């Protein structure tokens, strides 16, 4: 089986080829580049599944190879010897899992696009498929990058693809603006990420994720040595660099306070939202934490910050999702909120829980976005939920798959989302019993469950239930197999994916059914779940309320209770034939929430109210003071010459007088100096 690993580069190269084909020959191809894209992502999917098989069947359980050296040289700083920046492939259980997720969703989105984009007569389709191809290439390469620099590079490239695809409808005003904002905000995070990469490289002389010469191992050794790094304790320095890298994560995974770009990114085609802004690219940040989890595990402070940011974002975004009228906006805020959960899970050391939720979320959120895409087709490109209603009977496939996704998102047992979210909250609870900060994060995460249930079902009821509230909702546009097939595939996954890790059941019954846990325990030495549990030590064995079983039941019971009450409230308010908005009941809070807590305002102010005037002031300073000095030098010399030239009167006598005066003056000066008069 291990021979299969030799084909690993092709996983990313297939979509790259699709990108080149779509860009070069797209306009002449029958489906404008869709076919090469579908073939390439199908190939990537097949190979990714083969990688899973190879990881299972292989002896080492992972694959690590260096493809080529990007640059090499002497390293300065804390390490005296040379450093090599390489491109390499690391396929361990985590990467293999993520490869399957990414290529599967990319494949399904390509298929979905056949109807969503091609059938709608869009122009610029080669550009669209080229963007998707480049994105899939970058994302897959990011997933199996074996070092932090390569990860950073493809992290940036997915940002580029995100920019290009959000701005796909560039002839509007809003899409280019949203694209710019998305790139800029994530770039701001990447600024810290890049400092982190540079700092880690300069500190440890390596950027490898796994193996003996990884920076994780080097950091561990440095902490054990107890030495100083760049004037800090080794552990403090690890925390600092870890938090710098976290900056990129917060940007890409749309965590507070850099979450503002994601709702705007909904300006892109819905397929793009499904692929990039829900299931994969946004996951890149969280995936990166999982990828270098060993590094964060060395720093409890960094982990606690991750957990707190995650918990806060989960609640914060969920409350904003409650008042949105645009179906894609609701999903956007729910995406931010769900990634908050993953951060919370990883931050409390729940590595498996975080990755589990990452996987489940990828499935059900892609499903929901594609479902929303189907709704948008049905509604002739209307996205306002108040104009929908009653679609349940007219589009049963869309309805039932969307409902499956919604149940998973709301965390209703036994759909996939419940299992992973419950595991995250359970982990947070037991860590929280010993750490007040984590307890606060847990409380916020728990509260967010209620809001999640509410906004999810508010969306479902407004869209599908009740009576049609507009003409198009009376007579929706039919959808074809290219829409239904991805929906059904993802719908099935959203229902059953939870089986992968039924942790509560395992804990209560003692059955060995935590498959994902086992899966992630394999793989590269020091870069797997088994190693992390060693590092994180004791808290998981002590932080119970009563016994383990009671803790499990309390955690699950609480979150289920809140999820049901949220859903129930939505049922009561919106599952009526003619629902009305209930926003007045929010009172004074309403405006704050509807304005997204003024997050956009202050960030726009930072860009346009502060930076731009500052730049203009700098420009004025430059034009007047600096260039003024330069021009001043020339003006002064011009002015001076203009005065002095008036000595030249044109009258010969004056010249003669000048000569004589000068001569006499010279003689006198020489005389004085020569001492003639003494």
């Amino acid at each position: 089986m291990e021979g299969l690993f030799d084909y690993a580069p092709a996983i990313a190269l297939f979509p790259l080829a699709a990108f080149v084909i779509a860009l070069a020959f797209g306009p002449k191809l029958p489906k404008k580049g869709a076919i090469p894209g579908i073939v390439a992502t199908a190939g990537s999917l097949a190979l990714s599944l083969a990688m899973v098989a190879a990881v299972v069947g292989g002896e080492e359980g992972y694959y690590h190879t260096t493809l080529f050296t990007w640059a090499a040289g002497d390293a300065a700083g804390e390490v005296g010897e040379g450093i090599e920046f390489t491109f390499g492939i690391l396929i361990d259980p985590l990467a293999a899992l993520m490869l399957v997720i990414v290529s599967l969703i990319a494949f399904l989105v390509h298929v979905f696009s056949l109807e969503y984009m091609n059938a709608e007569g869009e122009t610029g389709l080669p550009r669209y498929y080229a963007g998707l191809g480049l994105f899939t290439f970058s994302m897959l390469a990011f997933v199996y990058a074996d070092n932090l620099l390569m990860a950073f590079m493809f992290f940036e490239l997915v940002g580029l693809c995100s920019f290009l695809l959000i701005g796909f409808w560039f002839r509007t005003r809003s899409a280019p603006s949203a694209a710019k904002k998305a790139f800029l905000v994530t770039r701001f995070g990447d600024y810290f990420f890049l400092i982190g990469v540079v700092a880690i490289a300069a500190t440890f002389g390596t950027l490898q994720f796994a193996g003996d010469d990884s920076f994780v191992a080097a950091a561990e050794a440095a902490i054990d040595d107890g030495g100083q790094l760049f004037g800090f304790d080794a552990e403090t320095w690890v925390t600092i660099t870890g938090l710098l890298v976290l900056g990129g994560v917060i940007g890409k995974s749309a965590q507070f306070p850099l979450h503002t770009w994601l709702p705007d990114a909904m300006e892109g085609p819905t397929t793009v939202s499904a692929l990039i802004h829900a299931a994969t690219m946004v996951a890149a940040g969280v995936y990166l934490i999982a990828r270098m989890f060993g590094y964060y595990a060395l720093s409890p402070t960094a982990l606690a910050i991750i957990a707190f940011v995650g918990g806060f974002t989960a609640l914060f975004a969920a409350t904003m999702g409650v008042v949105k009228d645009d179906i894609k906006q609701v999903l956007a805020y729910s995406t931010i909120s769900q990634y908050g959960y993953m951060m919370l899970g990883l931050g409390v050391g729940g590595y498996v829980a975080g990755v589990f939720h990452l996987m489940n979320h990828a499935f059900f959120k892609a499903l929901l976005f594609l479902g929303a895409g189907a709704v948008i087709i049905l509604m002739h490109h209307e996205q306002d939920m108040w104009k929908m209603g009653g679609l349940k009977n007219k589009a049963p496939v869309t309805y039932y798959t969307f409902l499956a996704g919604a149940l998973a998102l709301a965390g209703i047992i036994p759909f996939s989302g419940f299992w992973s979210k419950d595991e995250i909250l359970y982990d947070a609870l037991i860590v929280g019993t010993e750490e007040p900060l984590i307890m606060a994060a847990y409380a916020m995460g728990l509260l967010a469950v209620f809001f999640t249930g509410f906004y999810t079902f508010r969306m479902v009821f407004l869209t599908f239930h009740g009576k049609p509230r507009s003409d198009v909702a009376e007579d929706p546009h039919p959808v074809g197999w290219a829409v239904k097939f991805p929906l059904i595939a993802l719908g099935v996954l959203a229902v059953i994916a939870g089986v992968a890790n039924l942790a509560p059941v395992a804990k209560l019954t003692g059955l060995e059914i935590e498959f994902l846990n086992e899966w992630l325990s394999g793989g590269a030495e020091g870069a797997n779940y088994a190693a992390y549990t060693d590092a994180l030590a004791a808290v998981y064995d002590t932080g119970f309320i009563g016994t383990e079983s009671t803790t499990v039941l309390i955690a699950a019971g609480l979150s289920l209770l809140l999820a049901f009450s949220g859903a129930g409230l939505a049922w009561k308010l919106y599952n009526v034939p003619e629902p009305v908005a209930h926003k007045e009941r929010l009172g004074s809070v309403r405006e704050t929430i509807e304005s997204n807590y003024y997050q956009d305002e202050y960030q726009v102010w930072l860009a346009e109210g502060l930076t731009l005037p500052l730049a203009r002031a700098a420009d004025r300073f430059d034009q007047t003071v600096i260039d003024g000095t330069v021009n001043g030098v020339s003006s002064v010399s011009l002015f001076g010459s203009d005065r002095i030239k008036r000595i030249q009167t044109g009258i010969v006598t004056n010249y003669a007088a000048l000569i004589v005066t000068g001569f006499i003056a010279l003689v006198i000066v020489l005389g004085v100096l020569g001492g003639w008069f003494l």
Partner: protein
Amino acid sequence: MMIEALLAVTLVGALVTFVAPNRIAGKLAFGISLIPAALSLWMFTAFDGSGNALLDGELAFESQFEWIQLGDYTISWLVGLDGISLPLVVLTTVLTSLAIMSSWTPIDERESQFYGLVLFIEANLIGVFTALDFFVWFIFWEAVLIPMYLLIGVWGGPRRKYAAIKFFVYTNVASLLMFGAFITLVFGLGDVTSFALPEVATAMLEGGPDGFAGLGGSALASVVFVAMFLGFAVKVPVVPFHTWLPDAHVEAPTPASVLLAGVLLKMGTYALLRFNFTMFPEQVEAYAIPIAAIAVISVIYGAMLALAQTDLKRIVAYSSVSSMGYVILGLVAYTQFGVGGATFQMVSHGLISGLMFMAVGVIYNATHTRMVTDMSGMADRMPVAVGILVAGAFGYMGLPLMSGFFGEFAIFFGAFGSGLLAYSQLFTSLAMFGIVIVAGYLLFALQRTVFGPYHLETDYDVGRAPLHDVAPMFVLLGIIIALGVAPELIFDMITDAVDPILENGGDA
């Protein structure tokens, strides 16, 4: 004798073009410029040098003979290439060819003179990067100014005279300062009887000057270091000596901008590396913090200025100030990745800024305006040209897998761990913020000009750009991506030439 051949071909080509009829001058000049381009590419493959040209390295294509005897001092013709100068020579020849092709559309008067001057610049630039005797080098250095002055002053925009004179006088005064400083240094070095740079460098590193004109040895070295730094700083340019650049760029015709940003600015950093950072390791250490501060200010302040502009060319011009700040930071880091990355960045920025100016030029050819406020939605009418402009903009922002990223990353990495520069982590982190601002102003400009609904203030019919306008940009883009994917193509030879410099002072 390869370098002499290279120079001769270009100079003769310039003369031939000068007297050729206007009708065929463009095509003829392009054809002629392919010869030095091919020659230099051949030299690139046949390069067999090693080490640094000034520090006992093995020079490639070296040739030397005595030229003038002045009292005790000998001036000799000494040319040769090492790993630092060769990439710059190739950059010069390739970029000139592409710039010539890109000027077929915009240049429609006095063509033969225009293309003749462009080839004349090329010859002098090759001379600057190959000459290793100060006297010969200085002749080429100054001779570059004259054709550029004419290109701006004759074919430029409405304020061309102001811009041309400002460019000429400003850089010339700076050159004078540098010239005086260097001559003083040579007189201060007792045993040196020639202006050959290797000899001066050796003497500097083996004891330094004895003193001259009332100054002691180390004081003289410091004065000369500062004076030369200021002289080159104008050429680079760094803040606050940068104000000639935007004026020159805005008024210059597109191909002149391409050469100005692409190669002429690199003369400054190349000279800094060759003179200040090779011959004065002690002074580099002593003045590291002010130089790094200048670099960081150039990066941030230049980027802020670019943010405030509404003229596309001014945006790119100010962003050049910002990018050259990175180069200075890399140099002062004095590590292999820092100095090597700075050299790489010189080449990379030459390619990318050339690409940007060409792309802006293509848009200008069609719209006759460069003001951001005058147009929007250009992507609608010129998809290919705009696609390249967007690609170039992302290259400028340091997108990975394009050459700019490697240059910047190497500089940051080299500077972060620099042992010579105190507070290097702080300086590096501050300078890195430039990557956010650069994204800000370029994306802001793109959003307003090429995206959005199509609208144009000027009264022109905009269609797709002709092939000979976009072909050179495709070539540049190809090189940029190739260097981004495999920077080792030139980084190996650069580090090979940089290492001997660092042995004298840096801690790498």
